[in-house]
């Protein structure tokens, strides 16, 4: 699977890693919907560092669309909330 971290380029992930990423992603969704700012920031950092450490960076020569896109590491809680609100996931 090809994953993009916004601002950090693309990486290639195997299925195991995709599972791990998926689990952290679910936690982030929970944090955003419950308004846990600190946990959100911690798990977003965790998500990004897990990928950077364990996944293989894609050679920039390759031009491929990503399967998954991850926000940039400095995406604030408010911005994350907006991403959901705009799509109508969270009311208010």
């Amino acid at each position, binding site marked *: 699977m090809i994953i993009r971290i916004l601002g*950090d380029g693309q990486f290639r992930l195997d299925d195991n890693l995709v599972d791990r990423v998926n689990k952290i*992603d679910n936690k982030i969704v929970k944090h955003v919907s419950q308004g846990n700012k600190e946990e959100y920031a911690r798990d977003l950092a965790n998500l990004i560092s897990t990928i950077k450490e364990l996944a293989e960076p894609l050679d920039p020569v390759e031009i491929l669309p990503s399967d998954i896109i991850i926000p940039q590491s400095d995406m604030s809680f408010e911005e994350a909330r907006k991403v959901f609100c705009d799509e109508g996931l969270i009311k208010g």
Partner: protein
Amino acid sequence: MGFLDRMSTVVQAKMNKIMDKIEDPRETLDVSYEKQLQLLQNVKRGVAEVTTSKKRLELQKAKLQMGLDKLDGQAKEALQAGREDLARKALENKASLQAQSATLDQQIADLQDQQQKLMDAESRLAVKVESFRTKKETIKAQYSAADAQVKITESVTGISEEMADVGMAVQRAEEKTENMKARSAALDELLESGTLTDYSGSDDLDRELAKVKAQSSVNDMLAKMKEEIKK
């Protein structure tokens, strides 16, 4: 994938803005390439802007450091003259300057990070643009092949995603430098007016200290004269 799905939607929206609908798919390749070159220029400009902002903050940091050193010296002088009240004042001012200085350090580190990221993005994009250019010529040459359309879509989608990403990074960097410009202009004003480094309010530290020093030299001279008269 809750959050990540959402992010893909956001990026997809930006990509759709980048990709125009053009009748001839081969033309799509050329138009996309033109846009890539433009974006590369934008990234370069973004890097230059962040660099300038960082230099400006570093200059302010140096000015603040001078202010800190000065206040330190003043506190010592005041203590030597037995004026603990003045020394306290100088140190209080120093503490507030130190807070400003720590904020500046943080902002400089932030810009440094931003600069590095943009530079990395620039070199990734440059490689991709070159790769795209080669690919586009190959696709055009074998356009009659049945899979040309698929290849075009794949390349254009792939590069558009990169462009959306880099475009957002440049935008973020611009917003950050804009914010910092405003804050650093405010700090510049404070530094220029001397409010931060030189606390020349009603009871100017410098003037007070000068008075204290003059007083003590008058005392010295008096003592000397008294000694001489005694002789």
